[in-house]
C-alpha cells in the first residue's frame, strides 16, 4: 500500500464536495463579504441562515468570550433570501465553491417559501434546515428542534418541495437526539448536520447582568467539541447510512479526523474561521497528512473506525 495518494473528495447524498471541510453557517457572512481566505480552497460554504425577508436580528451585546468558547446569538440577522441571491451568491458562484444554503423561518410556510426560491441556482448544491431557529408559529420562540413533531413537520415539508438534498441541522438533544435524527431522516432529510450551538449563559457579576442581550446565547468553539463528537458518534452508530456533517469546535486537522472516526462524512468549521480565516485550508491539509500517514485512500475510509470496547452510553 506504499505510495497511496488519497483522494479528498467526499460524496454526501449525491453531492461531491472537493474537500471534506466546509465553512459552517454564520462564519463566512452570507458569502458576499471580502475575506482573506481563497474560497476555492474550501470544500464548500454553508451560508448564514436565510429567511424570507431581511432580518435585523437581536440587539447587542451579541457575543461574549467564555473559556475556550464563543457565546453568541445574532437573532438570525440576514439580508433575506432575495438579498442573498442578488448580492452574495454571484460571488460564491464565481469562485466555484459549492454552496449549501442554510434556511430558517418563523414557521413552516416561511421555510417553504425560502426553499422554493433557492431551487434553480447552479451554485447551490444542498440545503441545510436550521432547526435551532425559534419557532414563532407554535413554539413560542423555542427552537423547532425542541419538539419532535415540529422538527419533522419542517424537514418533511422542505424535503418534499426541494429537488436539492436536504440536511437537517440539529443541536445536541438529551435524551431524544437519535430519535429526532431518525425522525428527520424518515421525514425526508438526506443527511444531518451535527451539532448546532449549545445554549449558554454568561454573567457579568459586577453589573449584575447577563453578558448577552438575548440573554441566552449559543456556545461554539473548542468548549463544545466533546459534546459534538458524542452526538456524531451516537447518531452514526444508529444510522450508519445517513451522511453526517460534523460541526462543533473543530480547529485543527486532528480535530477533524476525530469527527471522521466518530462517524462524520465531512466536517464544518465555524468559530475557528472567525479567528483564522484560513483554518479550513490547514484542517484539510491535516486530514490529508493523516490519511497518508495511515495509508488510507479517502476520508470515507476513516468513517466509524472508532473502536469502542464493550458498549458506550
Amino acid at each position: 500500500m506504499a505510495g497511496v495518494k488519497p483522494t479528498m473528495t467526499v460524496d454526501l447524498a449525491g453531492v461531491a464536495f472537493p474537500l471534506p471541510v466546509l465553512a459552517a453557517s454564520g462564519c463566512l457572512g452570507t458569502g458576499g463579504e471580502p475575506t482573506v481566505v481563497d474560497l476555492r480552497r474550501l470544500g464548500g460554504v454553508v451560508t448564514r441562515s436565510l429567511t424570507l425577508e431581511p432580518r435585523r436580528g437581536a440587539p447587542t451585546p451579541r457575543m461574549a468570550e467564555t473559556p475556550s468558547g464563543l457565546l453568541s446569538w445574532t437573532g438570525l440577522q440576514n439580508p433575506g433570501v432575495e438579498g442573498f441571491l442578488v448580492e452574495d451568491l454571484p460571488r460564491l458562484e464565481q469562485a466555484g465553491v459549492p454552496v449549501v444554503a442554510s434556511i430558517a423561518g418563523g414557521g413552516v410556510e416561511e421555510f417553504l417559501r425560502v426553499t422554493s426560491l433557492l431551487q434553480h441556482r447552479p451554485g447551490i448544491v444542498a440545503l441545510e434546515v436550521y432547526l435551532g431557529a425559534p419557532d414563532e408559529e407554535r413554539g413560542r420562540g423555542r427552537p423547532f428542534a425542541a419538539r419532535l413533531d415540529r422538527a419533522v413537520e419542517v424537514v418533511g415539508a422542505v424535503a418534499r418541495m426541494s429537488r436539492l438534498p436536504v440536511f437537517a441541522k440539529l443541536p445536541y438533544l438529551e435524551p431524544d437526539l437519535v430519535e429526532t435524527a431518525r425522525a428527520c431522516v424518515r421525514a425526508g432529510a438526506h443527511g444531518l448536520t451535527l451539532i448546532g450551538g449549545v445554549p449558554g449563559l454568561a454573567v457579568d457579576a459586577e453589573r449584575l447582568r447577563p453578558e448577552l442581550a438575548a440573554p441566552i446565547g449559543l456556545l461554539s468553539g473548542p468548549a463544545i467539541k466533546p459534546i459534538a463528537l458524542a452526538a456524531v458518534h451516537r447518531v452514526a452508530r444508529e444510522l450508519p447510512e445517513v451522511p453526517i456533517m460534523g460541526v462543533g469546535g473543530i480547529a485543527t486537522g486532528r480535530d477533524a479526523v476525530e469527527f471522521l472516526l466518530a462517524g462524520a462524512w465531512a466536517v464544518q468549521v465555524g468559530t475557528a474561521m472567525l479567528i483564522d480565516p484560513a483554518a479550513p485550508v490547514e484542517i484539510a491539509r491535516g486530514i490529508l497528512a493523516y490519511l497518508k500517514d495511515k495509508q488510507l485512500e479517502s476520508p470515507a475510509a476513516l468513517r466509524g473506525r472508532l473502536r469502542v470496547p464493550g458498549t458506550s452510553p
Partner: protein
Amino acid sequence: MKRVRAEVLSVRRLGAYHVLTIVAPEVAERARPGQFLSVAMPPHRAFLLRRHFSIHQASRRGGWAGTLEFAVEAQGPGTRWLAEVKPHRFLDVIGPLGKPFAYPARLTNCLLVCEGHGGAPISFLAQELRARGKRVDMLIGGATHDHVFKPIEAKRMAQTIRIATADGSMGEPGSVADLLPEMVEAVGAQVVYAAGPREMLRRVAELCVERRIPSQVALEERMACGMGQCFTCVVPVIRKDGSGYDHLRACTEGPVFNPARILWDRWMGEAPEPAPTPPEGFPVVRSWPG
C-alpha cells in the same frame, strides 16, 4: 485588508495603557485614522478570539516607515497578554479594517473630543488633519490622569486644548462632554470628531444635532471576527432616507459613524423592544459635507 506576521518592535507603558509598535508595512501604508487592527491571541489558550484595536499611528516615511502603533488597556486575559508581549515576537495581524474618519473638504475648524483609549485614534486623526492644513482643537479626558491619553502630544498638536478627568486629577473635574458646549463656541467648531465611552459620544451627538454641526464618532461594540463575517458587532443606524433603521456592523460599515444617525437609546440597551419606525419616518440626516 491584509493579513501579516508583524514583528513587535517595542511595548511602552503609558499611564494606564501599553503602546505596541509593530512592523507591518503593507498595513501601515493603507492605514487611516479610525481604522483598526485585528490581533490573534496565542494558540492553545482559553481566550480564543482575536482582539481589535484602533490604529494609533501609521508611519509611512522616515526612520519608522512601515510601523504601526496601537494602544492596549490591560483589562482581560487577552489584553494582559499583549501588554506583556516581548519585543521581536511575531503577531498575526489583519488590517487595516473598517471605515476611516472622513476629512472635511472645505470646512477648517475641527474639534476633536476623546476620553480614555479613544485618544489613540483621535491623536492619529489630529495629526492627519494638521497635515491637511486644518485647525485642530482638542478636548481630552479620562477617569484619572493616568487615563488621559498622551496629553503632552495633544497640547503640541492642538490650537487650544482642555482636559477633564472624572476624579479631577488632571484638568477640570467631570466629563469632556460637560465642557463641550463652551468649547464648541470658543473655537468656532465647524466639524466635531469623537471617540470614547458611549455616554460621552451620545452627548456629543445630541449637541451636534442641536447645533447642526457635522460630526463623526468612532464606536466600540463587542466584536468576534472583525471582518464582517459574524454579525455580532452591530449598531442600530437610521437609513439615509429615514425609512427605518438597520443593524450595521461596526467592523465593516463602521466603526466610524455619523452620530446623528445612531439610535442611541436602542444601542445603549435602554429600549430593549425593537424600536418602531415612526409613521413619518426618521428625520433625514444630511450627509457628510463634501
